[in-house]
């Protein structure tokens, strides 16, 4: 509760709204005690006095009544009616919703049909019909406004109740022989109350507006008694000659409703866990760059060369070092594998190349990524955009999520092409068909009219590959492209990629957590753990004798065909969270070869020829790979 209030107070607008709201309510409460004139005493000789006239701070209305007094009494009435309507609507709606949600089945069906029926009315029609039946009057207006809002609460609360009614503790209560009424009161209600409060905080403003509206129409409070709405309604005829009589009550409604809305938004935000974690931030067009150290010099190797790359996630004052000092390079026609568990930083490494790390919270804080010798970190967005897809293309995991669900695959292919060069509609179509053909999609001329959800997973991933090929890039970065697919499809996709690499001289950076895939496709492999490279070298050499204990454990995770009853070894424990890495080796806690000196100080990447390892007690001593 205090945490909630703190969060609420941090939102300055909500705080301001709350303060104004409290002031208005206080004013309404003490109104009878204030030395005000009687709000209903008319004095026609003194009518339409302007604001700040003597004896009438806010002037007088068309019957010479004191506006300040009428305003305060009207506010009191409007607030009372609005809040009462909200409470009535919430209580009735919650009762209906809980009954429908708890009993389910036929009861639920009948009730919700009725609720849907009521919601089929534009709200004012229902309110008007009710007032028409009951006759004009403030109490009837209150009933109408409450009734109109009951379906909203009923529907919300029903949804929540259905979720709770199937929980274990409710089953337990049933088994214990508690009566339904008892279960509702002791088990369901306490869990629903917060939802009711939130729903009320966001609708009470509306209800005050609606009652004011009915009064404005002359269907609510009847003279001489006046709430803010009827004050406005009466003042309307003198709008042009004496606008202040309209402005005074109108501004008051605005102030009340606005402060309630500010407060309501604050309450909602404070209770939304996603907002706290920053998960509702929009990723910018390119990853933010905040490079502090010097730019490392190029070694002049590879088509793509990454040096000492550091990418961090900054969330609420904590820094997660997702990529830490990673260097790599890839040549034309070469396939480089990056392997590691989820959270090892391999995907972030790959996305950093073209500035595709979601930002916020991602920030590239150091290093260089060079394409043909030109540094891309901190390059202007125009430059990055021009290179994306044209020079460096990506293939992502799970093409159902990564293809746009509402565009035909052909149109998505054509868009990839037309993002970089002018093509006519027919030309684009022709290229799209050719692209699908090149990834061995049968009957491509027809399939370009399909939506992603109409294709199988394997077909979708072929589309993903075709899209990456659209502009004949030099480098393809494939981020676990086969993870979501079954084994036979996986093999087909890998063979397509391998053929493309050979026929087009593509450089491929292939990210996976599966050593089996690496063995099939990659020339060289880099093993990542907790944002760092722990081992790298030619694939065969590493497969033959892995040196880092983590590499060895990863390889033990791969089942071997015909390998007999060898136990698949899962690695115990989880990778460390990268916001607070231990000194020394990050793998120490999970390593069965750990020695005290492993944790003493940072361990450097020890290099010998084409191989390198970050371990002081390797499984086998590091040998230079035989070329």
């Amino acid at each position, binding site marked *: 509760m205090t945490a909630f209030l703190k969060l609420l107070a941090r939102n300055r607008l909500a705080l301001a709204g709350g303060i104004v709201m409290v002031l208005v309510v206080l004013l309404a409460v003490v109104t009878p005690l204030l030395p005000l004139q009687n709000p209903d005493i008319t004095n026609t000789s003194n009518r339409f006095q302007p604001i700040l006239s003597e004896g009438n701070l806010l002037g007088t209305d068309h019957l010479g009544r004191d506006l300040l007094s009428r305003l305060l009494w009207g506010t009191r009435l409007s607030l009372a009616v609005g809040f009462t309507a909200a409470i009535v609507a919430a209580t009735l709606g919650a009762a209906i919703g809980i009954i429908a949600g708890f009993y389910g089945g036929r009861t639920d069906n009948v009730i919700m049909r*009725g609720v*849907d*029926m009521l919601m*089929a*009315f*534009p*709200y*004012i*029609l*229902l309110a*008007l*019909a009710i007032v*028409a*039946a*009951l006759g*004009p009057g403030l109490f009837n207006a209150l009933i109408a406004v409450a009734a109109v809002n009951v379906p909203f609460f009923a529907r919300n609360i029903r949804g929540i109740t259905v979720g709770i009614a199937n929980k274990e503790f409710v089953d337990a209560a049933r088994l214990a022989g508690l009566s339904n009424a008892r279960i509702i009161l002791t088990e369901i209600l306490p869990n629903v109350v917060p939802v009711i409060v939130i729903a009320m905080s966001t609708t009470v*403003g509306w209800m005050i507006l609606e009652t004011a*509206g009915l009064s*404005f*129409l002359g*269907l609510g409070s009847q003279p001489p008694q006046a709430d803010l*709405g009827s004050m*406005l309604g009466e003042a*309307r005829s003198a*709008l042009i000659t004496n606008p202040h009589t*309209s*402005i005074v009550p*109108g501004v008051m*409604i*605005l102030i009340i*409703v*606005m402060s309630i*809305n500010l407060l309501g*938004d604050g309450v909602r935000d404070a209770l939304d866990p996603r907002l706290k974690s920053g*998960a*509702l*931030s*929009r*990723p910018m*067009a390119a990853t933010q760059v905040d490079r502090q150290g010097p730019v490392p010099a190029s070694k002049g190797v590879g088509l793509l060369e990454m040096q000492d790359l550091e990418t961090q996630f900054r969330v609420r004052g904590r820094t997660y070092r997702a990529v830490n000092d990673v260097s790599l390079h890839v040549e034309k026609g070469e396939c480089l594998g990056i392997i590691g568990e989820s959270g090892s930083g391999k995907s972030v490494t790959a996305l950093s190349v073209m500035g*595709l790390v*979601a930002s916020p919270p991602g920030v590239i804080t150091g290093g260089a990524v060079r394409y043909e010798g030109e540094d891309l970190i901190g390059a202007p967005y125009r430059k990055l*955009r021009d290179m*994306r*897809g044209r020079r460096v293309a*990506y293939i*992502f995991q799970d093409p159902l*999520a*990564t*293809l*746009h*669900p*509402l565009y035909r695959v052909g149109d998505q292919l054509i*868009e*990839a092409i037309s*993002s970089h060069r002018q093509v006519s509609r027919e030309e684009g179509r022709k290229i799209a068909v050719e692209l699908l053909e090149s990834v061995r999609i049968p009957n491509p001329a027809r399939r370009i009219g399909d*939506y992603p*959800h109409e294709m199988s997973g394997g077909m979708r991933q072929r589309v993903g590959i075709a*899209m990456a090929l*659209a502009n004949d890039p030099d480098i393809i970065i494939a981020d676990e492209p086969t993870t979501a697919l079954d084994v036979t499809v996986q093999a087909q996709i890998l063979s397509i990629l391998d053929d493309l690499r050979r026929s087009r001289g593509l450089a491929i950076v292939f990210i996976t957590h599966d050593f089996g895939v690496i063995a099939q496709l990659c020339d060289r492999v880099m093993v990542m753990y907790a944002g760092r490279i722990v081992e790298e070298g030619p694939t065969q050499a590493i497969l033959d004798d892995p040196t880092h204990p983590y590499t060895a454990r990863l390889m033990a995770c791969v089942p071997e065909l015909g390998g007999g009853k060898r136990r698949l070894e899962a690695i115990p424990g989880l990778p460390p969270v990268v916001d607070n890495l231990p000194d020394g080796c990050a793998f120490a806690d999970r390593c069965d070869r750990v020695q005290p000196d492993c944790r003493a100080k940072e361990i450097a990447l020890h290099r010998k020829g084409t191989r390198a390892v970050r371990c002081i007690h390797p499984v086998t001593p590091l040998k230079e790979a035989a070329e």
Partner: protein
Amino acid sequence: MMTGYILKRLLSAIPVLLGITVIVFLIMALIPGDPAMAILGSYATPDNVEKLNRDLGLDQPLVAQYFIWLGNMLTGDFGTSFALNRPVLDEIMERYSATLILAGTAFVLCSVFGVIAGVLSAANQYGWVDKGITFVVLLGISIPSFFLGMMMILLFAVQLRWFPVSGRWPIYGARDLWALLDHLVMPALALAVVATGVVARLSRSAMLEVLRQDFIRTARAKGVHERGVIWRHALRAAMVSIIPVLGIQAGFVLSGAVYIEIVFQWPGVGRMLVDAILRRDILLVQGGVVIVAACYVLFNIMVDVAQSLLDPRIKT
């Protein structure tokens, strides 16, 4: 396939429409006292009251009354408004066209500007554009539309003399499109403001939701311009959750039209209903509510159809 879907949706609307007539009928049946008395006033003789009750079918049991009323409506007979002494249907049709022009314009305005504001807000999240739009939107959803309308009259009609104060047509002069637009601008804007705010809020959060999805990253990885990412990729996907809200807003715009019609003396259904309620012109209220609610139900079917056209994943 599409026609089949539309037909199915239309059929499913029939129980809802029947339900609406039941609700309206029941509410009106609850009216305390004798409707004939209310119509004829306190000077009515008992004979007259009895005759009128017979004419209105009010001497029949409640269920029979409902079916008589329903049957008459189905044949296009909504009865006669006693206060206006003309067929209810004629009066409603005449008024309804005015309301549709006003509410339709406001609906288009709130859809277009609401969505644009929401997209701009989301695309510049936490920036000045976002903060500005968020504040204006908050102001918009907090101001009573009738008060806003009155202030607009003061400023734009009385002070600046840009637009006429009220009404649908000039008292003198041609009743052409320009005259209509001249009179329509202020009420349509005043009516659109609240709904625009609601649509903008929702569009903003729908866009933020979509912008974090994987296919947005794919679009960026292809090299699509940020403009295209926002307006083509993200907005298209966000529309899936924005369109249902537009359907709900249509109801709010229709509701708000009641106030705006009074403030701007626009001769629409809303004003007619309020007058009818104050005069206890029951048949007119019943007919008006049923017709407007029915149109709203049909409009929401159109929204569903639009939704299914936008989203191929919806089974039609």
